């Protein structure tokens, strides 16, 4: 009998609990409060962290107790701290998945899936729209007030969050939104995985009020759950013939559903024994990315690709195409 420790019972945690049975039928779910003692989680096959705030503390406790961890953290400092727990996880012979939500997480898997179709990948651009629960909304608010990391021509750059407006087209029904640089963890994680890529950026949608009030406390309490969110991953590179190719994949779904599906897919991979001990990051070339994406689809997330103008043959449907998908208005 598989026993899963679920830390956090917010919107994402609730959705994780409802989806675990799809990939791990008959599993037992034990819900813990992150503020409490996690000692009782020892003995669980895997722990999924879906609570707000920093997750590095919970992760350290669980890894030390010998419990594999799947973390949905998306705060940059938190994710950086989780990555530094690689040695600790290795010493305790457990798996640790850092950033297994929508972004980072699903974005990394989509980036790897698209990169595998290219002979050479030069650029990765990620855009995110929407939030899950209140903790996610607060993180969204903070992300617009920090410093956005990125990679430009091979050099790490830091730009003020809220700058770099770009009109990004997400899958329907979300459509087009102005997106801005934000303090997101994806460029940091993808930069370490895609070492040959020269440019990496991550943006999130925001309106004028979001940008104006980003450096102030939240003026109104966040919604219990945001509406339909979306994510968009664009890769530019070259195919085997040397032609310039742009591939775009995306998702339009409730953010909590995407995050839950990604976390559950990774948890199931740990239970199956598919992941090595130590740190794992979504987008790693050693992962069974297609298998994980299949699992995510089984959990109710519809993956989409942007086809642009018609193209005769699969497997390069978006080649030369999506110039209309993204219009830089900076």
């Amino acid at each position, binding site marked *: 009998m598989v026993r899963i420790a679920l830390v956090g019972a917010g919107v994402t945690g609730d959705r994780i609990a409802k989806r675990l049975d799809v990939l791990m039928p008959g599993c037992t779910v034990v819900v813990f409060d992150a503020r409490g003692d996690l000692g009782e989680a020892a003995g669980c096959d895997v722990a999924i962290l879906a609570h707000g705030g920093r997750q590095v503390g919970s992760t350290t406790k669980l890894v030390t107790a010998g419990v594999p961890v799947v973390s949905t953290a998306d705060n940059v400092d938190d994710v950086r701290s989780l990555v530094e727990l690689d040695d600790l996880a290795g010493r305790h012979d457990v798996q640790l998945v850092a950033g297994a939500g929508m972004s980072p997480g699903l974005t990394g898997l989509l980036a790897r899936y698209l990169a595998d179709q290219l002979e050479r990948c030069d650029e990765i651009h990620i855009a995110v729209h929407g939030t899950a629960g209140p903790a996610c909304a607060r993180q969204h608010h903070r992300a617009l007030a920090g410093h956005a990391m990125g990679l430009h021509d091979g050099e790490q750059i830091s730009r003020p969050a809220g700058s770099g407006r770009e009109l990004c087209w997400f899958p329907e029904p979300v459509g087009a939104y102005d997106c801005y640089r934000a303090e997101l963890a994806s460029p940091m994680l993808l930069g370490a995985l895609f070492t040959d890529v020269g440019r990496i950026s991550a943006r999130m949608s925001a309106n004028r009020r979001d940008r104006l009030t980003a450096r102030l406390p939240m003026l109104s309490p966040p919604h219990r759950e945001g509406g339909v969110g979306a994510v968009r991953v664009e890769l530019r590179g070259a195919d085997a013939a040397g032609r310039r190719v742009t591939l775009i994949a*995306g998702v339009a779904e409730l953010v909590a559903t995407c995050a839950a599906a990604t976390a559950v897919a990774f948890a199931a991979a740990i239970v199956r024994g598919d992941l090595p001990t130590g740190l794992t990051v979504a987008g790693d070339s050693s992962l069974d990315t297609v298998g994980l994406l299949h699992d995510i689809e089984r959990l109710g997330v519809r993956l*989409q*690709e942007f086809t642009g103008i018609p193209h005769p043959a699969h497997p390069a449907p978006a080649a030369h195409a999506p110039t209309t998908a993204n219009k830089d208005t900076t």
Partner: protein
Amino acid sequence: MLWGMKLIRGAISAILLAATFAAALRVRGTGGTPPQHGGWRPLELPER
């Protein structure tokens, strides 16, 4: 009264001028045909 007539004549002239420009652009414009296909479609993952 005279002022009102001037205003109406001005408005009609502006509308006619705009219509002329629009017609010229419509007939002579070379903006091309916007994409009739494309957009987002479900991602077909390869079998495991």
